[in-house]
C-alpha cells in the first residue's frame, strides 16, 4: 500500500485499518452475532461448536476460546466487536482494558484515578524498547 503507515510506530496500539478489517471480517461478524440474547446463550452452551459456524481461522477461534484479548486484536478483531464477547462474559470495558494492558484490575483502576496513562514515554515503539 502506498498510503502512509506512520501509525505502525505507535506502541501497544492496533489501528483498525483496511488490512485488519479484511483479516478480521469473520471474527468481528461472529462477535456481532452476540448482540442477540439467543446467540449469546448458544455460544455459552458450546463455544467451540458456535465458533465453527463462522469461517474464522483456527488462530482466531483459539484467541476467542482463550480470551486472548490482545491476540484477537492482532488477528483483525476490533475492540468494539470483541467487547461484545466481554459483555457476554459479564466483564466491563475497564476489566478487559486492564487485561489488555497487562495490569490487575486494581492497578488499572488506580492508574485511571491518578489521571490515566501519560502519553510521555508512550508515543513511539522506540520508547518501549527497553521495557521488560
Amino acid at each position, binding site marked *: 500500500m502506498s498510503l502512509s503507515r506512520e501509525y505502525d510506530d505507535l506502541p501497544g*496500539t492496533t489501528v483498525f485499518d483496511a488490512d485488519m*478489517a479484511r483479516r478480521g471480517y469473520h471474527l468481528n461478524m461472529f462477535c456481532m452475532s452476540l448482540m442477540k440474547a439467543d446467540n449469546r446463550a448458544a455460544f455459552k452452551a458450546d463455544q467451540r461448536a458456535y465458533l465453527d459456524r463462522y469461517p474464522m481461522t483456527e488462530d482466531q477461534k483459539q484467541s476467542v476460546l482463550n480470551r486472548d484479548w490482545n491476540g484477537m*486484536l492482532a488477528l483483525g478483531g*476490533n475492540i468494539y466487536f470483541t467487547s461484545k464477547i466481554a459483555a457476554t462474559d459479564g466483564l466491563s470495558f475497564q476489566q478487559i482494558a486492564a487485561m489488555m494492558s497487562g495490569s490487575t484490575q486494581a492497578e*488499572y483502576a488506580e492508574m485511571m484515578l491518578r489521571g490515566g496513562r501519560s502519553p510521555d514515554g508512550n508515543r513511539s515503539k522506540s520508547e518501549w524498547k527497553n521495557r521488560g
Partner: protein
Amino acid sequence: MAKIIAGVATSHIPAVGAALDNGKSGEPYWKPVFAGFEKSKEWIEKIKPDVCIVVYNDHASAFSLEMVPTFAVGCAAEFPIADEGWGPRPVPPVKGHPELAWHIVQSVVTDEFDLTIVNKMDVDHGLTVPLSLMFGQPTEWPCPIIPVCVNVVVYPVPSGKRCYMLGKAIRKAVESFDRDLKVVIFGTGGMSHQLQGQRAGLINKEFDTRFLDNLTRDPAALVSIQHIEYLRETGSEGIEMVMWLIMRGALDDMVEEIYRFYHVPASNTALGHIILENKN
C-alpha cells in the same frame, strides 16, 4: 427560518449511561460526573431547542462490518434503542425529524458531501448517553433528534477538516429550512482515551485542555490536526474528537463559551464537555 443557536460537545462514555440506569449516579465515583452537567441541564432547559442534531458514532451496533457509511443521516421518524449486548438502555425511543433530516440531506449532498440516507437504525450509547447527560431521565425526550452518524471506527475515517466543512454545510442546510426552529447541534465522543491494547488507559489532559481552549477561540488550529496526532497524543479512540469539529463548523466563527467541564476518569476515558453559543 431555522437556525443553529448553540453547540454542545460531550463525551459519550457507556459506563456513564450504565451508572445512571442502575441508580449509581450518587455514588462517590460517579457523583462528580453528573454534578458537572447540572448547569448544562439548566441551560438547555432554558434554551428549549426545537430540534437537536446529534453527531455521534455507532459502536458496531447499527452498522457491523457489512456496511460502514462515512457520514449517515438518520431520516426516520423513530430510532429504537440498540441492545449492545446487555439489553437496550431503559431510555425513551428517539423521535426523529424526517422533514428537516431529508432537507439536510438534500442541501448537503447538493453541496457535494455524499451522505448516506438511513431510514432504519438502532441508536447506541454514542447518541443516548449525551441525551441522558443533558436531559436527565425524562419519560420522553423533550425534542426531536436528528442523528448524524460518523465512521470513526474503521479506517480510513474522515479528517478533522472534512468534518469541520460538513458542519458548515449542515449549518447552511438548516438556515435554508423554511420553518422557524431553534436548533442545537451536539458533537459527541472523546476526549483522550484508548480502550485497546497494552497502551489502554492513555489520557492526555494537556492536549484535551488545548483542544477545549481552541474550540472556542481558534478552531482553525484544530482542523489541521492529522489522524496520526490524535492516535499518538490522545489514544486510539481520541479520534472521536473529529466529531466535535462538525459541531464547531456549524457555529459562527466567533462564539461564546458558556460552560466547560473536564473530569478524569470516567471508566477509561477523559470526560470533556463544553457549551458554545453563537453571539448573534
